[in-house]
């Protein structure tokens, strides 16, 4: 893959640039470099040339963009990105590695991102450093991001494009939305990308585990029909936390109708007044125990009101293998408001390793102050623990398509 590292620079970031150039020469993947300087005059270009010579940076070109400094940093940066985009498109590069000049990264980051992009054909891969951003938003800062050529052929970086949102990083948000809406895919990598599992490796043993309740009966039959058509072989465990015991029987009838045999249906009798989140967590804990005691490699968390393509689990397994991730979380949208991205475990694959260390029962956490007071708090908490423990997470959008989140 022919990659261009394209980075807008400015003399305001001079303190970072030397360190960054030393980081550039250590990269394990060979790539050309284009720096676009939008400083007030040409003097900074000469300074960078001096740094490049000093640190033996090869294949590096520097262009100067003469621009009114009063237009602000967004305008400067995005006009510089347009020059980079032009270079990528006209010189037949396969991808642009957008790497901000104040962002130190491990030397093998680019090569790992490229391997992932090649294997899974993602449109954009964004490596996140630092805190977990929950919920995932239509926001992207391009600080360490690999963008394939196809996206750049269709979309640019000018602030004046129609439909530009009024927010931080508006162009990033706009760009990402265009790509996903147009059938492309966007993934965020949290933590370090692990080794790629080879094709000859043993097939992953997966349990489809779902907490169910009769309030979702409107979607249950359609969901089970969907389960019966899943291509990847997997067992099914449903934990019914309905207080009405008759519902248990109704679900069995659905399973018979769609010839589902390899399933377990457990009824969990709980206090009816218990908060729904607690009921779900207790149900998920039963699933966790099943995974740990029956040698499953992973849990396919699939909410019983979401309809997905029949190859969805194959895609998730492949994504997990592509970077040794502990968790692959595919985002959908909130049931009542399709404009809001939903980041809970609605369509997710969670590896066994995660469950060996962390539980869904929040009262088991040693430090209660860390439990976030938000929707799906147990799931956010688990994600945080995974990252704290050195694991990695992949958050994806647009890879599995379509996903229908049923509301009636």
């Amino acid at each position: 893959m022919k990659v261009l590292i394209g980075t807008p620079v400015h003399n305001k970031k001079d303190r970072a640039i030397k360190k960054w150039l030393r980081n550039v020469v250590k990269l394990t993947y060979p790539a050309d470099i284009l720096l676009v300087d939008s400083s007030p005059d040409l003097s900074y270009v000469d300074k960078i040339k001096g740094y490049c010579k000093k640190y033996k940076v090869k294949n590096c070109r520097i262009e100067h963009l003469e621009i009114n400094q009063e237009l602000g940093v967004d305008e400067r940066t995005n006009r510089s990105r347009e020059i980079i985009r032009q270079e990528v498109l006209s010189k037949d590069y396969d991808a642009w590695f957008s790497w901000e000049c104040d962002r130190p990264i491990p030397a093998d980051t680019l090569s790992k991102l490229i391997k992932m992009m090649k294997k899974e054909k993602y449109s954009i891969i964004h490596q996140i450093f630092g805190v977990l951003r929950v919920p995932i938003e239509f926001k992207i800062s391009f600080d360490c991001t690999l963008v394939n050529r196809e996206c750049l052929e269709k979309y640019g970086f000018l602030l004046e494009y129609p439909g530009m949102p009024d927010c931080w990083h508006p162009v990033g948000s706009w760009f990402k939305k265009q790509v996903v809406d147009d059938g492309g895919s966007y993934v965020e990598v949290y933590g370090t990308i692990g080794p790629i599992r080879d094709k000859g490796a043993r097939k992953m043993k997966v349990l489809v585990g779902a907490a169910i309740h009769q309030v979702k009966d409107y979607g249950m039959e359609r969901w089970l029909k969907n389960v019966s058509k899943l291509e990847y072989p997997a067992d099914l465990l449903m934990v019914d936390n309905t207080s009405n015991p008759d519902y248990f029987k109704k679900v069995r009838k659905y399973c018979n109708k769609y010839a589902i045999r390899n399933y377990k249906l457990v009824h969990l009798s709980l206090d009816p007044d218990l908060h729904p989140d607690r009921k779900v967590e207790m149900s998920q804990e039963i699933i966790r125990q099943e995974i740990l005691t029956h040698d499953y490699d992973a849990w396919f968390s699939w909410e019983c009101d979401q309809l997905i393509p029949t190859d969805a689990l194959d895609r998730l397994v492949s994504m997990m293998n592509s970077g040794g991730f502990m968790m692959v979380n595919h985002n959908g949208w909130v049931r009542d408001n399709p404009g809001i991205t939903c980041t809970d475990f609605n369509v997710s694959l969670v590896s066994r390793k995660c469950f060996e260390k962390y539980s869904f029962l929040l009262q088991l956490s040693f430090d209660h102050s860390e439990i976030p007071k938000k929707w799906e708090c147990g799931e956010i908490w688990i994600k945080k623990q995974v990252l704290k423990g050195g694991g990695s997470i992949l958050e994806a959008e647009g890879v599995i398509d379509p996903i229908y989140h049923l509301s009636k």
Partner: protein
Amino acid sequence: MSKKIKKILIGTPIHQVKDYSMERWLKSVSELEYPADFLMVDNSPGYDYVEKVKDYCRKYNITNYKLEHLEINQELGADQRIGRSREIVRQEILSKDYDAWFSWECDQILPPHTLGKLIELKDSGNFMMVSHNSWTREIPNQPMNAFGCALIGREPLEKYGFLLEYPDMPDCWHAGDVWFKKQILKGGGNYIEVSGIIKPIYHLEE
């Protein structure tokens, strides 16, 4: 077998300084025979001119159009305004799967069969672009080959843009147009420039 209708966008930067020709031009647009969508990018100061153009469109029963406004510092000059407006047109073509851009300046009056003829010319040699010459507005005996009447295929638009700050921009009139053509050739593409095939073309001065 009937030929597949190409999805074309007429995309034109407009400005209030060309109001002298706007109504006549929109009448000409309304008479075009080949079906096409229509995007105007107004780079006049403020939004007043947008309303005036909408009235003209109403008068000539033009309904399938979009009118975007680009708020831009007027002191940057016409080339900068036009280049940035063309980038918005380009974005529309690429993101909405158009096959080609019909670049038609808002001071040129063309015959109704023009677009059909340009498509025919472009297809005749599988060219990336057909540019039809007219003459300079102020000096009618001096030929001009900017994108006043041109059909540009999607393929070069995927690769090249219209910003004046791109590296190696020539220092001349219509620099963006010249640079774009150069890139097409550098990239192994092709285009044709023709004269006298579409007539009459009126390049309005007043």
